[in-house]
C-alpha cells in the first residue's frame, strides 16, 4: 500500500499536532457555549419559560349565558331564546400585513355574499359600538359554512363561528314596545356601574323590559379554559377548567297576552298611528300596552341592512320604534273633562247640582269658544255635561279657575305632565300648561303673550298646549276610579328562577294618595257612565250594547297641523272599576269613531278572559 513509510511514524508532524490541538480547543469551546446556554435557559431562567409555555397553551373563551325568558301574567312565553351560529371576525387576529389582511377580508366578503367595501363598513360600524369585541358579520349561518371554515382555518385566521343565544319571539310583533330588544353593550354603557362586569361583545337589554330588568334577565357568562395548539385550535380533550354560565332569571309581566293581542289587532285594523293602555286601577299593573305602527323585534337579532334601519328609524311620522302609549305628547280633548270636573268640584267652583246654560259658545274677552260641531246643549249639569260632552260647561269651569291654579293643582296631583315611575324606558313627562309656566316663557321672550283666561278655558277641555299620553291619562282616570290613589304603573310582575321559584315580586307602592270626596267622584263616574251607556251619551253607539256597565269618555283633540286626534278613556266595570283603558289615534277624528271601538275590543278581550278565569275559579271551589 501507499505511504507505508509514514504509517507508523511515532512522531506526528508537529504542525499537524498543533492544528489538531486547536481543532480540539475550538470543539471544546463550542461545547462549553452550548452547555452554558442550555444551563442558562433551563436552570437559571427555566421558571420564566415554563410560565410562558403554560400561558401559551391556554385560551379563555367566554360562554354566553342564555337570557331569562319573558312571560305574560299567565306564564305564556313572550320571549325565549334560540341558539344561532354567528360568523365572527376578531380583528386583533387578522394578519398584520395589509395585503394579506385585505386578501382575507376579500375572501370573507365572498363567503358572506357581500362586497369588500360593505364588509369594511360593517366592521367599522360595529367597532364604533364596541371596540375590541369580535365583530359579528352574520347570524344564523348554515352548518356548511362552519365546516368550510374549519377545513380552511389557515386561510381565515381570526374568523370563527360562535354558538350564541339570540332572542326568539314566538308571537311576532306582540308587545314589541314593552319587550324592547337586546344588543351588544356599547362603550358608554361599559363605563356605567351597572355593567361593570361585562366585556365588549356581551349582550344587554337596550330597550323595554329587556333594559329595565336586564340585571335579572342577563345571567352570568361562563368561562371555559381550554388547551389550544399553536394555531389556536382547541385540542382534543383539551378542556382545562370551566365556570358554567348561569342562565338569566325569567321575568313575568303583568301583561295579558290575550288582551294585548286584541289591542294590537284593534289598532292594526284601524291602521292609524296611536297607542293604547289597559291597567289595573288598584295596583297599577299594566295588562296591555301598545303602539301602532309596530315592528318585528326579531329584526334586532341579526345584523340589519340599511333599508331596515331606515324603515325603523328615519321616518319621523311613522316612527315605529316610538311607544306612543307612554312617549306620545298629545292634547287629549274631552277626555280631560273629568279632571276639570274633580278640580272644580273640590275647589268649590261648581256643585254637582249646578246648572249652566250652554248656548253653543262662550265668549271670553275677544275670543269665542264654541262646542264641537257648534251644537247647543241648553241647560246642563255636571253629569249631563259629561254625558253629552258639553264644551261650554267646562269652558265655564276653566274660566272660573283661570288664575286660581286649582285645575293645574288637581291635574298635577293626578299625574298629568310629570314622571309616572313606569318601569319602561322612554316615557315622556309631558306638559301641563299653567300660569307660572306661560308667564315664565313670556318673561324669557319665548312666547308673545302671558297666561290668559283663554289658556285655562282650553285646558279645561284638553286642548291648547296640553301634552300628555294614554299612560298619564290612565293613571288619572285610575285615581278617579279607585278613590284617589295615584298608582305606579308597571309591567314587571315577578322574577322566577329557572326552576320556577319566585325570587322577587314587584308591587311598587302608589306614588301618592289624593283625598277626594266620594260623592264628587261618584257624580263624575255617573256622568262618564251616561256618556258611554246613557241615552244621549257620546259613545253610546259603541258601548250602548256592551254587556258590562262602563264609564267612558270620548275625546277629539285639535292638533294642528294634523287632523283631529281621537281619544277614548274608559273605566270598567261601573261603578267599581277594576281596570282603566285608554286609546288614542292620531288623525282619527271623533273619539267615538276610531278610539272607542278599539277600546271596546280591548274590554271584550279582557272580560272574556275574566269570565273564563272566574269560571275556572268557581270550578275549583265546586
Amino acid at each position, binding site marked *: *500500500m*501507499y*505511504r507505508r513509510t*509514514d*504509517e*507508523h511514524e*511515532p512522531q*506526528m508532524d508537529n*504542525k*499537524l*499536532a498543533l*492544528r*489538531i490541538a486547536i*481543532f*480540539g480547543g*475550538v*470543539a471544546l469551546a*463550542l*461545547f462549553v*457555549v*452550548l*452547555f452554558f*446556554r*442550555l*444551563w442558562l*435557559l*433551563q*436552570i437559571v*431562567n*427555566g*421558571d*420564566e*419559560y*415554563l410560565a*410562558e*409555555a*403554560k400561558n*401559551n*397553551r391556554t385560551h379563555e373563551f367566554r360562554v354566553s349565558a342564555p337570557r331569562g325568558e319573558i312571560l305574560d301574567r299567565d306564564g305564556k312565553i313572550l320571549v325565549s331564546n334560540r341558539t344561532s351560529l354567528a360568523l365572527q371576525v376578531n380583528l386583533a387576529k387578522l394578519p*398584520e400585513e395589509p395585503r394579506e389582511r385585505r386578501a382575507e377580508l376579500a375572501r370573507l366578503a365572498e363567503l358572506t355574499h357581500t362586497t369588500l367595501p360593505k364588509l369594511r363598513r360593517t366592521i367599522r360600524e360595529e367597532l364604533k359600538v364596541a371596540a375590541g369585541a369580535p365583530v359579528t358579520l352574520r347570524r344564523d349561518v348554515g352548518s356548511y359554512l362552519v365546516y368550510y371554515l374549519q377545513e380552511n382555518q389557515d386561510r381565515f385566521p381570526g374568523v370563527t363561528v360562535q354558538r350564541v343565544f339570540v332572542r326568539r319571539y314566538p308571537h311576532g310583533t306582540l308587545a314589541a314596545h314593552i319587550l324592547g330588544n337586546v344588543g351588544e353593550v356599547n362603550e358608554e354603557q361599559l363605563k356605567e356601574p351597572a355593567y361593570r362586569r361585562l366585556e365588549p361583545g356581551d349582550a344587554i337589554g337596550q330597550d323595554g323590559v329587556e333594559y329595565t330588568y336586564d340585571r335579572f334577565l342577563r345571567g352570568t357568562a361562563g368561562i371555559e379554559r381550554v*388547551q*389550544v*395548539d*399553536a*394555531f389556536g385550535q382547541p*385540542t382534543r380533550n383539551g378542556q382545562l377548567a370551566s365556570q358554567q354560565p348561569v342562565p338569566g332569571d325569567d321575568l313575568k309581566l303583568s301583561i295579558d297576552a290575550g288582551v294585548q293581542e286584541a289591542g294590537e289587532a284593534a289598532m292594526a285594523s284601524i291602521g292609524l298611528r296611536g297607542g293604547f293602555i289597559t291597567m289595573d286601577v288598584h295596583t297599577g299593573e299594566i295588562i296591555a300596552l301598545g303602539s301602532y305602527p309596530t315592528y318585528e323585534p326579531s329584526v334586532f337579532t341579526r345584523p340589519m341592512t340599511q333599508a331596515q334601519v331606515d324603515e325603523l328609524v328615519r321616518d319621523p311620522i311613522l316612527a315605529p320604534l316610538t311607544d306612543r302609549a307612554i312617549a306620545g305628547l298629545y292634547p287629549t280633548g274631552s277626555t280631560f273633562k273629568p279632571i276639570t270636573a274633580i278640580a272644580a268640584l273640590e275647589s268649590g267652583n261648581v256643585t254637582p247640582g249646578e246648572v249652566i246654560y250652554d248656548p253653543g259658545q262662550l265668549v271670553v274677552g275677544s275670543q269665542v269658544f264654541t262646542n264641537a260641531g257648534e251644537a247647543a246643549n241648553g241647560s246642563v249639569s255636571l253629569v249631563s255635561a259629561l254625558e253629552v260632552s258639553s264644551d261650554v260647561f267646562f269652558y265655564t269651569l276653566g274660566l272660573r279657575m283661570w288664575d286660581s291654579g286649582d285645575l293645574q293643582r288637581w291635574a298635577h296631583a293626578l299625574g298629568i305632565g310629570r314622571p309616572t315611575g313606569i318601569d319602561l324606558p322612554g316615557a315622556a313627562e309631558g306638559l301641563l300648561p299653567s300660569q307660572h309656566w306661560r308667564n315664565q316663557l313670556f318673561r324669557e321672550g319665548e312666547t308673545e303673550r302671558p297666561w290668559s283666561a283663554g289658556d285655562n278655558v282650553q285646558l279645561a277641555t284638553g286642548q291648547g298646549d296640553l301634552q300628555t299620553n294614554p299612560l298619564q291619562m290612565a293613571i288619572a282616570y285610575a285615581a278617579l276610579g279607585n278613590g284617589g290613589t295615584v298608582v305606579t304603573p308597571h309591567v314587571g310582575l315577578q322574577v322566577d328562577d329557572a326552576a320556577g321559584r319566585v325570587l322577587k315580586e314587584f308591587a311598587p307602592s302608589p306614588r301618592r294618595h289624593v283625598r277626594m270626596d266620594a260623592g264628587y267622584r261618584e257624580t263624575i263616574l255617573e256622568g262618564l257612565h251616561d256618556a258611554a251607556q246613557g241615552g244621549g251619551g257620546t259613545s253610546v253607539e259603541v258601548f250602548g250594547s256592551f254587556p258590562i256597565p262602563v264609564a267612558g269618555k270620548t275625546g277629539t283633540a285639535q292638533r294642528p297641523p294634523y287632523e283631529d286626534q281621537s281619544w277614548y278613556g274608559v273605566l270598567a266595570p261601573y261603578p267599581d272599576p277594576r281596570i282603566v283603558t285608554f286609546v288614542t289615534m292620531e288623525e282619527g277624528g271623533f273619539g267615538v269613531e276610531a278610539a272607542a271601538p278599539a277600546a271596546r275590543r280591548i274590554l271584550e278581550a279582557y272580560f272574556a278572559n275574566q269570565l273564563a278565569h272566574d269560571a275556572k275559579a268557581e270550578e275549583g271551589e265546586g
Partner: protein
Amino acid sequence: MYATRTRRARPEPFALRPGIAERLGLPYMDATLGLAALGLVAFSVFVLEEATQGDVPGSPGYFYDRQAIYAVVGLIGMYLLARIDYSRFRELRVGIYTFLCASVTLVFFFGFAARGSRRSFDLPFFSFQPSELGKLLLVLALAGFVIDGARRGSARQRTVRYLCLGFAPAALVFLQPDLGTSLVYGAITLAVMYVGGVPWTHFAVIGAAIVALVAIVLVVAPAVGTPILKEYQQQRLTSFTHPSEDPSDAGYQQNQAKIAEGAGQLTGRGDRATQTRLDFVPERHTDFIFAVIGERYGFMGAAFVLSLYALLIWRALRIVTLSKNSYGTLVAGGIAAMLLFQVFVNVGMNLGIMPITGIPLPLLSYGGSSVLATLLALGVLQSIHMQARLGQRGRFAW
C-alpha cells in the same frame, strides 16, 4: 513493531486464541465511538416514539418505526464500512467526486419537490437525499485530492483548487435550494484544508472573504434589489436576532423552541411538554428535535445528549491523531468537523443562538439519508481506527 508505545498498550490481541470477537474485528474498533453512536440512534428512536405518536394519521408509529429501520441498516453499513480499508477511497476520489456532483445535480431533474425545494429521489421505501451522503463523499474525495496534489503547484494554487472543488457541490446543493447542507459542505472543505496544512494566511483571507460575502448576501444584495437568498432563507438567517409573534414567522418558531427548552428546566416536563406536543415548535421530529428533548427530559436529557456528541467528537479527533496515514488524518478531520459543525449549528438554533439553517442533528433528527450518511461516516472513522490498530499488529484481518 512499536512495542515502545506503551500508552496505547492493551493485551496483545493475537496472544489470545482467535474468538468470534476477533473474527468480527471488534477488538480493533473504537468501542466508545460505537457505543456513543448506538446511544444516540437508540435515543432518537425512543424520543420519536414518545413525542411523535400519532403525528401521521393512521400510522401512529410512522416516524420511529422508520427511524429504527434506518438505524439498523445504518449500523450494519457502519460495521461493513469499518471492515474495508478506507485508503481505497483515495484511489476512487475522482469517481467519488463525480458521483457526488452528478447525484446532487440529478435531483434537479428527477428529484421530487417538497416545500419548494428539490433535494431527494423518491425511492420505493424512502426518499433518498443525495446531498446527505454527499457530505461523506466530499470528505473522502477532497481528502484524496489534497493528498494527491500535495506537491503540485504553489500553495496559493492549491488553496484555490481545494476551494473550487468544495465550492462546486456546495453551490449545487445551495441551488436546490438547501442552504444548511451547503454550509456543511463549506465547513467540511475548510476543515480538510485546515488539517491538510493550508497556510494560516490563506485562512485569514478566506475568513475575510466569508465576512464580506455574508455582508453582501444579507445586507447589500437585498438593499440594491437583487437578493441572492430566497426571502424565507433571509428571514431565517436574521430572525434569531428579533423574535416575533407570528406563528408563520421564523422568529416565532425559534422563540417557541427557546421557550420549550427553558420550560423543561432540570428534569423535564414529560408528557406535559406542551410546547413541542401542541405544535408550537415546528419540525419537532427533524430540525427541532433537540427542543423536544430539552422540554421532555430537561437539562438532564439535553446534557446527556450533548455529552454523547462531545464523546463522539473527542473520539473522532483522537482517530485523527491515530491514523496510520495522512489520508486517514484528513478524512477523520473532515468527519469530525462535519459532526461538530452540524451539532453546534443545530443545537445552537434550538437554543436561540444560531440562525435557522435547516441542518439536521446528526443521528437524532428523523431522516433516513441523514442517519445513514452519519453512520457510514462513523464507519469510515472505525475503519481508520481499525487500520491503525491492525497496522500495529502488522497484518490484515480481512
